[in-house]
């Protein structure tokens, strides 16, 4: 009699502890997630809306009290030719960089997945541009492209490839922007290569082998197997490159400071110049706001590429 009484009791005990466990999971999930969510909301979410609010204000570093200024900042920003120049630069800069980053990243990824002696050293050297703090590597480029002591000029001049001894890369109009683009490409190609490497490594070996057995040559395999199969990751690498390029201020800030005569500014560096150096937070905020649409577009595209990867 006692046995039959305790058996169902034990069963309900277990069931009860199960539901308690489930309750605890919900509770745990809350406890685990809330600090992060609060932190992100407080220091990313709020500042994001604050940035929009500042665009319509007369806030300056000297007088931080908020007064509504309507579209005044927009008018003053649009009246300035440097803004349009920097908007144009940002697009030129992003499109050209992205093209080279994807192209060279693909080449580099192919090298990095191959097997060869000394691979570790090559990988270390190849990673340097990406892992080095951008301010430091930009300083090195500034020195490499120095108007008088550039070893690049020296080498090009003494091999007869150029006929001036001093090019002064950072002091002239198209050259300076080309230099900024080159440094960006140099810096982000390793990152793109690593992302694409992931794609190359995920292709099942037997597909490649089957194609090889069927007589498909290198280029045929590249265009009919590798690229279609890794396309989503190539897209992700390209979009990441685009976002980092579109929104980067550091290279311009260190390499050229917008010189010569504000011709190499991009939106991010111009926003810094106005908002921090110039102290005009309102104008800086307006300029930075122009980064947002592009960012949103890139984010949506990345999400679609990732979705496509999941269905593969």
């Amino acid at each position, binding site marked *: 009699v006692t046995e039959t009484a305790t058996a169902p009791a034990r069963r309900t005990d277990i069931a009860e502890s199960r539901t308690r466990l489930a309750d605890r999971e919900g509770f745990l999930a809350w406890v685990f*997630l809330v600090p992060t969510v609060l932190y992100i909301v407080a220091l990313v979410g709020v500042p*994001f809306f604050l940035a929009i609010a500042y665009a319509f204000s007369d806030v300056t570093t000297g007088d931080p009290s908020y007064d509504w200024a309507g579209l005044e900042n927009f008018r003053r920003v649009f009246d300035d030719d440097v803004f349009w120049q920097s908007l144009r630069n940002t697009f030129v800069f992003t499109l050209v960089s992205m093209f080279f980053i994807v192209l060279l990243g693909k080449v580099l990824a192919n090298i990095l997945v191959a097997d060869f002696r000394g691979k570790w050293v090559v990988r270390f050297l*190849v990673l340097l541009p990406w892992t080095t703090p951008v301010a430091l590597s930009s300083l090195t480029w500034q020195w490499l492209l120095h108007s008088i002591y550039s070893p690049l000029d020296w080498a090009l001049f003494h091999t007869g490839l150029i006929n001036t001894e001093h090019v002064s890369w950072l002091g002239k109009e198209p050259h300076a922007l080309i230099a900024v683009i080159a440094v960006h490409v140099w810096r982000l190609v390793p990152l793109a290569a690593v992302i694409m490497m992931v794609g190359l490594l995920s292709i099942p070996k037997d597909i490649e082998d089957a194609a090889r057995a069927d007589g498909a040559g290198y280029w045929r395999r590249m265009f009919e197997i590798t690229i279609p199969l890794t396309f989503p990751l190539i897209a992700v690498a390209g979009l990441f490159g685009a976002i980092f390029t579109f929104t980067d201020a550091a290279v311009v800030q260190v390499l050229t400071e917008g010189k010569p005569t504000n011709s190499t500014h991009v939106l991010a560096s111009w926003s810094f110049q106005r908002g921090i150096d110039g102290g005009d937070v309102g104008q800086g905020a307006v300029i930075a706001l122009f980064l947002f649409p592009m960012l949103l577009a890139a984010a949506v595209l990345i999400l679609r590429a990732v979705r496509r990867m999941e269905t593969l």
Partner: protein
Amino acid sequence: VSTGTGLAAPDVPERMRRRFARRHLMGRVGLYVLAILAAFCCAGPFLWSAMTATKLKADLFGGDNNPLIYNQEPTVDHVRFLLVDTDFPTFLWNTFWVGALVVVITLLLGLPAAYAISRLNRPWSGPMGIAIFFVYLIPPSLLFLSLTRVVVWLDLYNSTWSLVVIYPTITVPVSTWLLIGFLKALPKDIEEQAMVDGYSRLGAFFRTVVPLLFPGMVAVVVFAFTLAASEFLYALSFISATDEKIVSTGVAQDLILGDVYHWQELQAANILVAVPIAFIFNLFLARFVSGFTMGAVKG
């Protein structure tokens, strides 16, 4: 007739084999050439940097010297000057402790968040993962102006502590994403077994998940530290006092005295910072790669 075909038959594969061998050899040579070229393009500026740092002044700035070789004896004077007579050690120390604290905050926030998203099967897990990924894409250049005001409100302007508070906005999202990837690679049975053995969910998390996730956590530590050490825009916006600066702003701004660039010291600083970071990063590259793909692919 039969002997004739018998002789010709092995001949054809032999020719084919030789052709393949030649093609293979050319492929290998091409690969090495490309690998060396890639290494040179990427690391060339650092080579110039290292040479500059160890050249004598007369050698570096001597009118007709070939800049690509040492015309005079190399020297370590500039490196010594950098380490003894400049604020560089202060910058290094600031970078180090800011990075360490940022890493701790990142793990404290990121690890539980990643666990909640990937393991505790809530209906909002999927969207939350995507939301965290998007936060990573919001760049400093969009937020630096308003965050500068926030830092002023917090009374942290011109203090290295401002970076400790703000840098996790960059590192937490990406680290959470990485940790989600590592967690997905961890079999669920292990925790379930621990719970069968009598541990609570929380106990199972601490006793099985945290130790097993340790390699992934080390990777996250390296990644977050590197991100914190490389950041430039926030550090530039929040801090202008020399002894509160970190490496990236300190070297770029405060080792240049007026218009005088101490190129040799600057380049020495570059090498001293760049080489260790790249070295450690290289050790963990495979792990970053697996973390990112796990998070992305195994939805």
